[in-house]
């Protein structure tokens, strides 16, 4: 499964890349801001995007809205410290398939990826 990681933190991108690569997933790109995220998502057409909610230039919700078209089939897993109900509901209503609130258990993310793998 091909994954695009979107997070402004080098530490988080690197940690996620290690985790996903160790589990056999193919990390095809990393984006540190919203503009890069949208460009890479449209260009690479990943199977999954892990998407942070607060980025320097836009929110995860802005990115979801930009990508939320009928021909965009990528599953989006929001991974964010923003945990309020309204943010979660907004994300899910705008195309996020899952929402993990940081700090989360790595096994939760792997479980979600396996679920998506089985669906595809």
């Amino acid at each position, binding site marked *: 499964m091909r994954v695009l990681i979107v997070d*402004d*933190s*080098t*530490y*988080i991108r*690197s940690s996620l890349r290690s985790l996903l690569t160790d589990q056999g997933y193919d990390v095809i790109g990393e984006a540190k801001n919203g503009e890069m995220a949208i460009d890479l998502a449209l260009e690479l057409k990943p199977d999954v995007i892990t998407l942070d*909610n*607060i*980025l*320097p230039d836009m929110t995860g919700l802005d990115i979801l809205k930009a990508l939320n078209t009928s021909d965009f089939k990528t599953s989006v897993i929001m991974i*964010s*410290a*923003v*945990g*309020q*109900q*309204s*943010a979660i509901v907004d994300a899910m209503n705008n195309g996020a398939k899952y929402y993990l*609130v*940081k*700090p989360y258990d790595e096994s939760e993310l792997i479980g979600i990826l396996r679920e998506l793998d089985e669906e595809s």
Partner: protein
Amino acid sequence: MLADLNDNELKVATKLIFDGLSMAKSSMEQILQSPISIEQIDYVNAELDTTRFGGPDEDVHLIKTELMGELKGTSHLIFSQKEVAKMYEACLPESIVKDDSKESTIMKLGFLTEIDNMVSAAVITEFSNFLDVEIYGNVPSLKVLKATDLNDFIVRESSEFESIIHFKAVFHGKELDICPDFIWVFHNKFVDKIKNLV
């Protein structure tokens, strides 16, 4: 100021602050994989006891998150140099801890800001859900300053707001031997929100 609240409103405010800090404590435990307790909460005085840093010229790591949205404010999570080293040892791979390259330094500092990101977000989430306000934390920023300059820095930050609410917690991680300070400065609108709620 919290003093503007009546007894009932004050009970609600202090419970909300306590609940938010408890969520922050749990987040910190999960990130550091080590038990953390709240050693002290001060609802009035934000001045820090800088003697714990070991001397006026010791470096202090302050990670700031600015609150965005309906309520204005900032949070500051503060570690001593020794505490930072202990957390790196406990949580990061040895290859990064012992390496002084630019890449490893970025990873170490990223780890610190990520702790703040999650800990401050835990408080923000609690406040947002309880007060029904749209607030979120901006991307955290790290500042290294001398212990002797810390209180002046917080005072300068606070002066951005006309009237302010302070609260401060001291966390304690017994296993890691760390006692980070966690200070919040809110605009007085926080009080209005509590008054409207009660």
